[in-house]
């Protein structure tokens, strides 16, 4: 909010127009994550993925560009930028060109509502969580578009699978989030994070703030909820073991088989940005968002300006931690088949999430 106010004041002082100030501040503060978070994070995550996978497999991974290859992704992006943009004759051109933009903007939209710290949240809307779920559903449209317009059977199969998968897995996600909403009574991510302030035992995974009996009753159900949410968000971002839409060994690359150059890079970036987004949501909901588990150094030292920075670091590290877990899972597990994926969702996750919801509801009423 500090960022927004700061921008608003500058523009307002220049133009003396509240509307102009509002719009400019909103656009700029919402665009900040793209420049400072989405792209750098995607680049970092791609590098991390390569290093993590390499070390898990007793390899070294990229080592040449920069120390331990940390510039590798940048080099790759530059290479991808230079590559020819191939559009086949039978592709549906408008849709084909639009799809990567849609997918990327879908994952970028999510960033707008993420509470990075108490001082900065791209767009502090009250329906934060619901907005994020809706926005990540937006990706499906892009993927379907990509699959259809590629005019490739593998792409089409991948897109169809993806659509079915993402739509199904939104249900357990929302059910778990409903549980949280029921306890906290808010859908604003910033408020939600503020509620979990203090020490780590105030986090939702430990039943939230306060010391009532219900807090302790919540704990097992919160853990179940967390696992369910984590699994279903994993599926929503098409990560192994749920990466069937791009299932490399079956569908070559699924919906982005036909893409090359920067368009492919956009899909790629979107995937990694999405990974961070869902991890951030999980941490915002269950692990206190930007809240530090042990209080702030800035408060102890009396330097209040340090607190938002610390909060940002905590938020980023929590997000990256869950991204690392996603990578860890990816390099351990095989892939499910499409019907088993659906079975997992409808037979296991949804009933569990639902029962969880009911029990938590009962506890809340008590």
């Amino acid at each position, binding site marked *: 909010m500090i960022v927004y106010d700061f921008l608003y004041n500058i523009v307002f002082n220049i133009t003396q127009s509240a509307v102009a100030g509002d719009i400019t501040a909103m656009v700029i503060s919402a665009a900040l994550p793209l420049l400072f978070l989405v792209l750098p994070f995607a680049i970092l995550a791609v590098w991390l993925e390569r290093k*993590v996978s390499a070390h898990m497999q007793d390899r070294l991974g990229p080592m040449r560009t920069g120390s331990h290859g940390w510039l590798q992704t940048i080099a790759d992006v530059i290479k991808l930028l230079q590559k020819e943009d191939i559009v086949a004759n039978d592709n549906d051109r408008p849709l084909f060109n639009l799809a990567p933009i849609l997918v990327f903007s879908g994952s970028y939209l999510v960033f707008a509502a993420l509470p990075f710290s108490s001082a900065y949240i791209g767009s502090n809307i009250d329906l934060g969580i619901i907005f994020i779920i809706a926005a990540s559903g937006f990706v499906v449209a892009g993927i379907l578009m990509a699959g259809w317009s590629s005019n490739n059977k593998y792409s089409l199969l991948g897109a169809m699978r993806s659509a079915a998968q993402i739509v199904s897995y939104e249900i357990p996600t929302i059910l778990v989030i409903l549980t949280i909403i029921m306890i906290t009574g808010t859908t604003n991510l910033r408020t939600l994070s503020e509620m979990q302030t203090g020490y780590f035992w105030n986090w939702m995974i430990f039943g939230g703030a306060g010391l009532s009996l219900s807090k302790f009753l919540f704990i097992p159900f919160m853990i179940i909820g967390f696992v369910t949410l984590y699994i279903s968000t994993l599926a929503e971002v098409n990560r192994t073991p749920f990466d069937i839409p791009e299932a490399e060994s079956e569908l070559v690359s699924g919906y982005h088989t036909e893409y090359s150059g920067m368009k492919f890079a956009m899909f790629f970036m979107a995937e990694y940005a999405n990974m961070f987004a869902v991890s951030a949501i999980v941490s915002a909901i269950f692990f206190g968002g930007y809240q530090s588990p042990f209080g702030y150094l800035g408060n102890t030292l009396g330097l209040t300006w340090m607190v938002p920075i610390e909060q940002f670091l905590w938020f980023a590290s929590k997000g990256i931690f869950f991204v690392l877990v996603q990578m860890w899972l990816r390099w351990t597990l095989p892939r499910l088949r499409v019907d088993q994926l659906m079975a997992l969702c409808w037979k296991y996750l949804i009933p569990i999430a639902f029962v969880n919801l009911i029990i938590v509801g009962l506890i809340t009423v008590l």
Partner: protein
Amino acid sequence: MKEYFQNIWYGFSTIMIGMRVTFKHLFVPAVTIQYPNVKLKLPERERNRLYVNMNDCIGCDQCARACPVSCISIETVKSIPGEDLGKTSNGKKKALWVTKFDIDIAKCCFCQLCVFPCPTECIYMTDVYEYAEFERSSLVYNYVTLTPAEIEAKKTNYAKLEAEKAAQKAAGAPPVKPAEKEENKQ
């Protein structure tokens, strides 16, 4: 119902076991090396690029005949009496001028079949494996030590000798008797 929860438990526990394995491997040193900077020591029997030591080659053509992909081509010219071609390192006397000894290493299948029949052990496989070229034609290795002019000289010398011999024969060397000829054949 019991099965349902067993399933969940089974799924979870095996995933955890798998994750434990991969986690352990995060701290295992890598087995790969940084290739051009670090190179493995090759074993002594390494089979890579062929090399011919022309000082020892007697031009017997055995390697070319053993080659399953015909990547070795050898041409020789007989020496004329009086020429001293020297000896190979294991004491064999050379009798042929090798005028062409080409190995098309692009065709070579590294089977080492050419190495074993060589009587003087002059063709062998080395441990050189970095010999990529931009032109396919530069992968044809010429091992001949003679210059083209020398080769031409040897050829004409031999042709001259042949011609002389033929002339001698024609001039009146005692013809071989037909009976003897038949005997020889048998």
